[in-house]
């Protein structure tokens, strides 16, 4: 299997990563479901389970490279800040984001014994905005493995004065 240092995976892409080169730094991007699906009307498998399965499959696919990279191994999850904090109009996005938060916390715990780090970053509207990309660069820097299991809002402070999930 070939390896590369850095891979970004959109969780809307359900293509199995079987042939993708393994990476020691994996960034998973969740952008939310299309439209405003509700509990009553949504295809829950597609809206909720599919992105979570993609996240798990990606981490599992890259796991050997992540753990063998020791303190350089990283998992970063990007998700909308509004979905992390609770958006009354997008319950399914909140379900997925809540699941991703607990998933990355558990990944951080499993990764701890290998020396790597896993964190979540929440963006305002665009996962590619400069504050987000600079934060990812910091979290994936060689000596940043001590920062792990954290949830960081790079979204102009929507969490200020609010309980975090």
């Amino acid at each position, binding site marked *: 299997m070939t390896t590369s240092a850095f891979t970004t995976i959109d969780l809307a892409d359900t293509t199995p990563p079987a042939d993708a080169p393994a990476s020691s730094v994996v960034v998973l991007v969740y952008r939310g479901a299309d439209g405003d699906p*509700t*509990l*009553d009307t949504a295809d*829950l*498998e597609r809206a*909720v*389970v599919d992105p*979570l*399965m993609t996240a*798990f*499959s990606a*981490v*599992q696919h890259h*796991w*050997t490279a992540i753990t063998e990279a020791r303190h350089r191994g990283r998992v970063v999850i990007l998700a909308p800040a509004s*979905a*992390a*904090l*609770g*958006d*009354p*109009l*997008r*319950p*399914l*996005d*909140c*379900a*997925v*984001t*809540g*699941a*991703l*938060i*607990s*998933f990355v*916390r*558990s*990944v*951080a*715990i*499993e990764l701890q014994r290998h020396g790597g780090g896993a964190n979540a970053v929440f963006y305002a509207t665009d996962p590619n905005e400069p504050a987000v990309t600079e934060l990812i660069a910091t979290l994936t820097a060689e000596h940043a493995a001590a920062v792990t*299991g954290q949830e960081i809002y790079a979204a102009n402070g929507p969490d200020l004065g609010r*309980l975090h*999930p």
Partner: protein
Amino acid sequence: MNSDGQRLAPRPRVAFITGAAGGIGRGIAEHLAELGYSLGLSDLSETGLRAVANHITETSGVTVSARAADLADRESVQAAVDATVSRLGGLDVLVNCAGILNDARIEKMDPAVFRQVLDVNLIGMLTTTAAALPALRHSGSGRIISLTSRAWLGNFGSTNYAASKGGIAGVSRSLSLGLATDGITVNCIAPGFIETPMSNSMPTEIIERVRQSIPVGRVGQPLDVARTVAFLADAGSGYITGQSIPVCGGRSISGSMRKAPASA
């Protein structure tokens, strides 16, 4: 009022509980029965469900509607909720308690197992909540109480279970905001180690290590969780919503599996 203009006695509050045949679910059902709730009970296990329903009926005298349901089957869940509403006259409290656990480290986790845990724990909660919402809106003081787990904070070898419980916490924040004006509160309870037939199947030395890591010095009982459910379920608890309450003897702030100090 009835059709003759006579005032009718108010009905008891009605709670619908999934996973009611399990250790924690049964404890919740029995405690709410002691408090006078009418109960709709559901579980995948028809045999276990009947045993719980018969015991509660015999010991408390409350009205029980028991119907087996597969949380992966939307029609089955809807039928169980509808049976409760029809027989008991409405629905005030939904307790999402059903869940399964199937741990493995990331490299050993079968993707089918990861999906199965999501389907039962998270999709099952979403499906049940959707089925119950119309009746809860009609209540005027509806309550949605979902059992997450201390694993929501992250747990070794439990990425699937933790994700499913985190999903419940996440959607509960959204629902609490969206349903507030309907008088419905939405909260989560995150139990730590609770003594049940399932947890008692663990090796004794593991249970002892867990007990030593719990600041209050004992493992939890289903009644510890049930009392918290009862508090949140009460019609007077309408000012608490969108919260996740750990019921774990302090383990959520002490760290897992760390030995407690010999003395304070």
